[in-house]
């Protein structure tokens, strides 16, 4: 079954080699089955009636005309699904169908199952809803002010504030007193959305008293939990299966109304029921990047060393909680994992507005503060006359340390990442050009050409689960049967290649090739738990679980071969399809004879590394990835149009289990970062999305994407599987501030607001010409009733390896 292969120079047979993904052929031949590709016999089609008002009370819903329409099999309203749900235990504020009040345009009110989609849509049109329209709350300022009609939600407060956070680590005031220079800035990061190519889709059946749902979700386990709660069924009567997945980026991480609705309709009709959202509905389903207004004040010594930082954020959350409490903490959590900040105060606030709820998008809550932080440090360097890269480098965190807010840093490749991109891009040489060095013969830089540098970090999985429990975060089972190996795991491959990671790890440990491993994933009936594809957790957590399970299986195979051949077990090699002198199949038969059914299991639970304070659960991760990036662009001073010429990025992934897929994640992250930096906006007018279509919501095309040079840096993390960390989210983060820094380098104007559009550049240039501040961005941060800071004593900075696992 396996072609013999020689071990590579890193000592591995599989790890570190560029293998095609296990499902690559089915995807390029059109045979991968996505949820909307399923059409079992007698399938009914579901459409959802949604609110046309951003804020209104529902006075009555009359479905009688819809029910009378030929072809309509069922119509349900909020009365049929009254139980609330939500991704976080503290914000169970959503209903699959609302019957009391709608809070954004697109809030679901009723659903129809009919023999075809057109009849279902016509039936939705025939439902009559009487509303009492309320004054909508459409901005952070409006949400902070006294409400005109009534609050959007009945919790949180005052006014439409959802969540307030105030934490202080170390003595911030003393830090500012110690500083030689203190600077304050205000930044704004506009919201944007995931825009997966596949619209959300779900199909449910109800057979033998059991519900089965196939969905394009990122997390089968959380959907399973929400279904059990709302449908009032035990979890053992519900099965959730992840269909082939057409892109998530965080947008399919919440349980969604349509997933619950198709299950309910299948239970009522006894037939399969499918719901695929239209593209417009996907824009309103959202859960994407929060718009965030940020204020930051930092003190530095004359050498540029940070003495203290105070960071304030205000998040425009939309109408529901979603992941918002976590998002709020994330806007303040990870500033400290790249820069050594000895004293740090964070005040965060999320407000409700009558817009589609925001949630997690690639980088969850951290691209916004990363944008602000990197530009803010650029400006400080400018103020005190230090090269900005030097200033940043002087403040880099070190490996094996703890941050002021108790985050544990193990491996850290910031220095190497920085050197790689600076060298490859010629960034420092360019700096010399810009100050007109006569030593360099290179032609003078033309106006409008610029380079920007930024760094970032991201988690390799959240160290705490979304709901409190002591269970492992990931589990893997392996079955070996007549030479065939099957790995079972709840992890959901959303295109990032998590199946490939599982196959590679099991193959490596069993001396096989990835294509020898059969995979069963993301099925709540047949696979053990994994918390799903979010927070860049799968490689680290499912990878470690797979490693443990595979090593147990290898031990059984080795023991059986040793017993049979009389060779000491510790000298039996497992490589190239052979266990010692026997083929894998022969060894598996011996082992099955010796042990019975050959199964093994592994699990992963993150170390207990959260700090001793309330709110410490957001931010800890067993390891952090690091990235550095240089962007080279041309910004036209006449039109403000930006053309990105090239991006260099170095990413500390810990260990590249499959470098092909790591590159793919890095390149995809850069692309998505460029889209956010330059054009993507989820903006609203009178409660309606301004651009709810793929033509109007601008995203980069083949023509916009520059050439990219990627450097994979391997720091071999002490706790990652083979040292691996993450690649899916971190590389997006530095791209956005690097773009804005490059625009400053090109034209001498600061664009302190994302996206960096031509209009903003032209306006900033106009201000510069008039002698005003050469900048475009917010000028004030609102007064927010933050509570008194919880004061937290910082931990000792040094982290010795012996105590690394539990601080």
């Amino acid at each position, binding site marked *: 079954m396996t072609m013999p*292969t020689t071990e590579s120079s890193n000592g591995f047979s599989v790890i570190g*080699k*560029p*293998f*095609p*993904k*296990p*499902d*690559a*052929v*089915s*995807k*390029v*031949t*059109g*045979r*991968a089955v*996505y949820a*909307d*590709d399923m*059409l079992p016999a007698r399938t009914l089609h579901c459409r959802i009636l949604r609110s046309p008002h951003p804020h209104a009370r529902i006075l009555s819903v009359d479905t009688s005309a819809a029910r009378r329409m*030929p*072809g309509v099999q069922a119509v349900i309203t909020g009365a049929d699904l009254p139980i609330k749900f939500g991704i976080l235990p503290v914000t169970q504020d959503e209903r699959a169908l609302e019957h009391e009040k709608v809070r954004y345009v697109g809030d679901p009110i009723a659903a129809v199952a009919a023999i075809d989609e057109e*009849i279902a849509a016509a039936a939705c049109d025939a439902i009559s809803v009487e509303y009492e329209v309320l004054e909508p709350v459409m901005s952070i300022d409006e949400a902070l002010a006294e409400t005109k009609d009534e609050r959007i939600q009945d919790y949180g407060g005052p006014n439409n504030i959802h969540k307030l956070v105030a934490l202080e680590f170390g003595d911030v005031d003393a830090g500012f007193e110690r500083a030689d220079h203190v600077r304050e800035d205000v930044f704004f990061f506009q919201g944007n959305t*995931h*825009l*997966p*190519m*596949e*619209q959300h889709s779900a199909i449910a059946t109800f057979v033998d008293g059991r519900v089965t749902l196939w969905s394009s979700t990122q997390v089968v386990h959380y959907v399973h939990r929400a279904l059990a709660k709302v449908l009032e069924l035990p979890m053992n009567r519900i099965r959730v299966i992840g269909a*082939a*997945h*057409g*892109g*998530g*980026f965080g947008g399919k991480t919440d349980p969604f109304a349509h997933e619950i609705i198709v299950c309910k309709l299948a239970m009522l009709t006894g037939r399969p029921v499918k719901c695929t959202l239209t*593209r417009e509905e996907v824009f309103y389903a959202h859960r994407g990047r929060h718009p965030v207004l940020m204020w930051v004040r930092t003190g530095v010594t004359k050498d540029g060393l940070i003495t203290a930082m105070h960071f304030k954020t205000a998040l425009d959350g939309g109408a529901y909680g979603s992941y918002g409490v976590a998002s709020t903490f994330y806007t303040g959590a990870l500033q400290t994992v790249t820069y050594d900040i000895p004293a740090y105060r964070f005040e965060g606030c999320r407000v409700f507005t009558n817009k589609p709820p925001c949630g997690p998008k690639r980088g969850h809550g951290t691209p916004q503060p990363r944008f602000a932080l990197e530009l803010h440090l650029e400006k400080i360097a400018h103020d005190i006359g230090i090269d900005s890269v030097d200033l940043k480098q002087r403040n880099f965190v070190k490996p094996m340390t703890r941050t002021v807010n108790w985050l544990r840093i193990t491996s850290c490749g910031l220095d190497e990442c920085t050197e790689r991109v600076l060298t490859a891009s010629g960034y420092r040489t360019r700096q010399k050009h810009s100050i007109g060095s006569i030593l360099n013969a290179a032609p003078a830089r033309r106006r409008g050409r610029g380079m920007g540098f930024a760094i970032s970090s991201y988690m390799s999985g959240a160290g705490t689960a979304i709901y409190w429990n002591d269970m492992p975060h990931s589990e893997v089972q392996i079955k070996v049967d007549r030479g065939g190996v099957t790995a079972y795991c709840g992890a959901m491959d*959303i*295109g*990032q*290649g998590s199946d490939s990671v599982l196959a590679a790890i099991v193959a490596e440990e069993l001396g096989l090739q990835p*294509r020898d491993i059969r995979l069963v994933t993301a099925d709540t009936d047949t696979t053990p738990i994994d918390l799903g594809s979010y927070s860049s957790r799968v490689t680290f957590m499912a990878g470690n679980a797979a490693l443990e399970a595979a090593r147990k299986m290898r031990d059984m195979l080795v023991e059986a071969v040793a017993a049979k051949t009389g060779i000491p077990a510790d000298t039996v090699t497992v490589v190239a399809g052979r266990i010692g002198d026997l083929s894998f199949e022969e060894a598996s038969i011996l082992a099955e004879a010796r042990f019975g059914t050959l199964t093994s299991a592994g699990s992963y639970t993150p170390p207990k590394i959260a700090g001793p304070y309330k709110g410490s659960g957001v931010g800890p991760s067993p390891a952090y990835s690091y990235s550095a990036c240089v962007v080279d662009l041309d910004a036209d001073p006449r039109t403000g149009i930006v053309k990105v010429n090239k991006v260099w990025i170095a990413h500390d992934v810990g260990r590249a289990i499959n470098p*092909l897929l790591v590159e*793919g994640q890095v*390149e*995809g*992250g*850069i*692309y*998505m970062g460029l889209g956010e930096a330059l054009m993507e906006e989820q903006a609203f007018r009178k409660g309606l999305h301004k651009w709810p*279509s*793929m*033509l109007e919501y601008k*995203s980069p*095309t*083949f*023509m916009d*994407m520059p*050439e*990219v040079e990627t450097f994979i840096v391997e720091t071999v993390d002490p706790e990652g599987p083979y040292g691996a960390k993450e690649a899916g989210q971190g590389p997006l983060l530095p791209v956005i501030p690097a773009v804005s820094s490059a625009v400053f380098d090109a034209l001498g104007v600061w664009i302190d607001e994302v996206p960096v559009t031509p209009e903003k550049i032209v306006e900033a240039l106009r201000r510069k010409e008039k002698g005003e501040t050469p900048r475009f961005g917010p000028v004030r941060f609102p007064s927010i009733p933050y509570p008194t800071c919880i004061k937290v004593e910082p931990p000792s900075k040094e982290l010795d390896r012996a105590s690394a696992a539990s601080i």
Partner: protein
Amino acid sequence: MARDVDRQVVVLDVNGERAELFVPVHKTLLEVLREDMQLTGTKHGCELGECGTCTVLVDGKPELSCLVLPVQIEGRAITTIEGMASGSELHPLQQAFVELGAAQCGYCSPGILLAAKSLLESNGAPTREEIREALAGNLCRCTGYSKILDAVELAAGRVLPTVSGEVARRAGGGPGVKDDDAHN
């Protein structure tokens, strides 16, 4: 049927097979392919002609199947992703996409593969810029387009040996993946 829906017999030539269908006249080619012919390899991203996901070939040229009615293309040769490989032998473009990881979630891949096939049939050695232009109507949210560009260059180079050493080196991945390997 309860409603008055005009239906019409249409005869389509899809992937070299003749299909006679009785479908509502307003149904798009995309809907007929997916719902009446079970050719679900053709995906939909917007159904408004904006994203390129539903691209099929009509007489070898890319068309957005969400904007075409079957009656418009009777008698013309339609190629969908299901018709791209020869039996279990992948088309060189499909092979290159597999080897270079040019399909992540894979949802845009059928449309991009067919648009690229059309390009290579009219221009066997396109420049990178020509590839960008030919595929500019197809959106992808996963890959950042880089690996797709590399894969189209690799496939073109295998027909005409002009591929750069860099792309060939990055192909890596060992022996070619045959269709059956992924379904063992």
